[in-house]
């Protein structure tokens, strides 16, 4: 047991009283979701090895709530696409995204997933946002583990401030419709 002080997450704004704490539902739900994001590592190439380094003990991603890496899309919160996606692989990526349950977020890790990277060829998909909507882009070839952690932290900010009603809103439905989802 270490005796260093642990950093507790700051509680949301609210009214405290004797035995009760009143706050907004959005804030509580956002706090819970942000600190327990379970990733689905969709690791295809070199960025996958940097993800392995991020999950290992030196740059531990589990500190941020990603303790349980889920390979089943139905049980995962965020899809981390790491590595080059070729045109042959794109339908599979879409199937995996469709199988995820709401709320779901996507981080695109690495230059190949963000925009095709070095590989401007006939067989590589030039960015996964051609087939699925992306929330956070982490550039790098491959990005350092600290950058991947920064990407997850940015996503945590997004998740904390997201409205509970976002997934039913017309803007979100329009976004999904633009991808034919």
């Amino acid at each position, binding site marked *: 047991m270490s005796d260093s002080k642990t950093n507790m997450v700051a509680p949301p704004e609210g009214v405290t009283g004797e035995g009760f704490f009143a706050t907004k539902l959005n804030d509580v739900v956002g706090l819970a979701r942000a600190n327990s994001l379970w990733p689905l590592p969709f690791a295809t190439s070199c960025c996958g090895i940097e993800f392995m380094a991020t999950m290992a003990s030196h740059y531990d991603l589990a500190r941020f709530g990603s303790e349980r890496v889920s390979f089943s899309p139905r049980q995962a919160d965020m899809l981390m696409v790491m590595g080059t996606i070729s*045109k*042959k692989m794109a339908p599979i990526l879409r199937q995996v995204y469709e199988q995820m349950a709401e709320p779901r977020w996507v981080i695109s890790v690495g230059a190949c997933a963000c925009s*095709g990277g070095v590989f*401007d*060829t*006939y*067989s*590589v998909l*030039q960015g996964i946002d051609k087939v699925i909507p992306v929330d956070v882009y982490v550039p790098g070839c491959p990005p350092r583990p600290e950058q991947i952690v920064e990407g997850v932290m940015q996503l945590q900010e997004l998740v904390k401030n997201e409205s509970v009603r976002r997934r039913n809103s017309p803007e979100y439905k329009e976004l999904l419709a633009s991808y034919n989802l």
Partner: protein
Amino acid sequence: MALETAYIQEKLTQKFGNKVLNFAMNRDIFSFEATPDAIHEVIRTLKVDEDLNFHFLTDLCGVHYPDNDSQHLFAVVYHLHNWVENVRVRVTTYLTDENLEVNSITDLFLCSNWMERETFDFYGINFIGHPQLKRILNMEEMVSFPMRKEFPMEDSGRTDKDDRFFGRTAQNL
């Protein structure tokens, strides 16, 4: 007895005459050319003969030479290796555009199966007698052969690239 390149040349010319030609020591690998109708027998001799004993197929690939004469447009290059005597040899066979096919060597070397599929995928060279000649790396619905020189490298459906930054003008597009 060390395997001398002169011995390889002599043995092959004795058996195949003028179907094997252009013997040369190309940097550090002894290479020669064989005609497409004889290539299967040449490789079988190289493998099966006790003195030659080239029992390992290192590599099989294709090359496209659009600037050559019509008899030498496509090439299939085989690299063979004899581990006991530590000798490598390179055999090339040239194909024409109309008759883009050659006998498959899957009955001699099991590892040539996928290497021939890759060559078919990239160049469209038909390997006669191959058990499963279909595309391996690209999508099966693809119709063109991407490694030929006339096929463009870049994704033609790309909309977000500004041609001015890449030196592409209406003249040289």
